[in-house]
């Protein structure tokens, strides 16, 4: 479903005398539909860079990212026009960042409901039920449902982050250390949710801090170096 071919990313820092930084190069892998690829490698080697290039937060400097979109057919995410990338993000591709970044002054429940309402075409009641189900599974105390996530603990924020990304059941999910700040129990719940999502056909690419965890959830591993 997604084939990365010789992807590279360099940053040119004009304001630091044209300093060049090579973030990654020669990245090539293939993930079949329904597969789960883990990215492995020491810190600073460019794992997050790869995910950000796939999500188009970074513009790739070279190579191609062939993705078989449900809406557009075969596309190259490295060069696809902005509008189409926004469309694919809205309909197909989810991303879990290392830290929660949400719109301020929006309650936890609305943060998670918003993508369901916008993307799945369900009623408010259905979206609300699904949201509350997720929050309860992730053991977010119910008195926090209508509080602002910016005030939550690190672990709670990360659980909200994951809930927001999985709630609307994306077709392709990119995960950047989703479990790094979670306790053992929460990690278990998150893995269970990811497993269910895969059973429904989702494809995933993830970075996990913990090698044991990585090997247990993914079905192939790519070494970034």
């Amino acid at each position: 479903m997604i084939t990365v071919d010789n992807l590279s990313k360099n940053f040119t820092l004009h304001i630091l005398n044209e300093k060049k930084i090579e973030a990654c190069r020669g990245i090539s892998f293939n993930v079949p539909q329904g597969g789960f690829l883990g990215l492995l490698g020491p810190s600073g080697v460019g794992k997050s860079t790869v995910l950000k290039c796939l999500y188009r937060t970074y513009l790739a400097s070279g190579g191609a990212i062939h993705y078989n979109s449900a809406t557009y057919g075969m596309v190259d995410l490295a060069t696809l026009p902005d509008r189409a990338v926004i469309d694919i993000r809205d309909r197909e591709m989810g991303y879990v960042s290392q830290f929660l970044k949400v719109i301020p002054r929006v309650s936890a429940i609305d943060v998670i409901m918003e993508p369901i309402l916008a993307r799945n075409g369900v009623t408010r009641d259905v979206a609300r039920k699904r949201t509350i189900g997720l929050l309860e599974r992730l053991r977010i105390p119910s008195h926090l449902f209508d509080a602002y996530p910016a005030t939550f603990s690190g672990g709670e924020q990360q659980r909200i982050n994951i809930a927001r990304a999985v709630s609307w059941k994306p077709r392709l999910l990119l995960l950047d250390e989703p479990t790094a700040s979670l306790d053992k129990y929460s990690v278990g719940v998150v893995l269970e949710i990811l497993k269910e999502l895969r059973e429904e056909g989702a494809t995933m690419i993830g970075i996990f801090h913990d090698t044991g965890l990585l090997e247990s959830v993914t079905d192939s591993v790519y070494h970034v170096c």
Partner: protein
Amino acid sequence: MEPLIRIRNLSKRFGDGCIRCLESTGPQHDTNLCSCCGSVMACNNVSFDLFHNEALGVVGESGSGKSTLVRLLHFEWEASGGCVELHQSAWPCNLPGIFTGGSDYSCNLLGLSHFQKRQLRNALMGIVYQNPHIGLRMHVSSGGNIAERLLGAGWRHIGRMRHRSSELLEKTEIPVARMDEPPCNFSGGMQQRVQIAKALSNNPLILFLDEVTTGLDLSVQARALDLIRNLRSEFNLSMLVVSHDLGVINLLCQRTMVMKSGHVVESGLTDQILQDPQHRYTQLLVASQL
């Protein structure tokens, strides 16, 4: 999906101009002032698309041509050159001669008569200025300010106009009881919300926001932004959001253009512009963020 408006090579020059104007201005010279004849190239070959229900951000330092761009598209100023075309689906009423057979897009709107431009503006556009003194008549009642816009859009029934005004003021969180007070009695944040109510009164398809939160204090700014975000989804607006504040752009816009010395130097997804800026100026802008 086709763009709602296509803008190609839009330019605005203040001054007589000479053959050296184009080559002596722009981001590479760090100026929009022609060294030869003293003309100002406020906007230079600006091209972009605005889609249905999208918020497009325009960032850049003061003097980069952001507000000029808005004034040109709102038909307040006459462009020196370029082409603005509207998609047929935007078409609300029957102005003759704008769409010619066959094409999905209108003729160049910049070539229309003043009368046609005014009709188009009243039917399709809303604008909120940084300075409420430009957008509002400060000594006319707030309801009257909104009614003025409705009159322009063809409304005639006083009762209905009053009803619409109170509806809009309620949406923008102005106490309806103060509808008959002039904006000069209001605080800056309230004036800005009256402006937003006025801009939305004709159910516009396109809303121009020119530095709407600049100069407001933080909590008022937050409320204005929340209001704009909610109104966008409620009214299905396409917005052009001009701001020098990257936070505002990040909150409201999916796509962003960066302007410098009258040129668009870079455009892309907002998160890409903020995290992987390509142009020297954008890198400086992002690095300067507090």
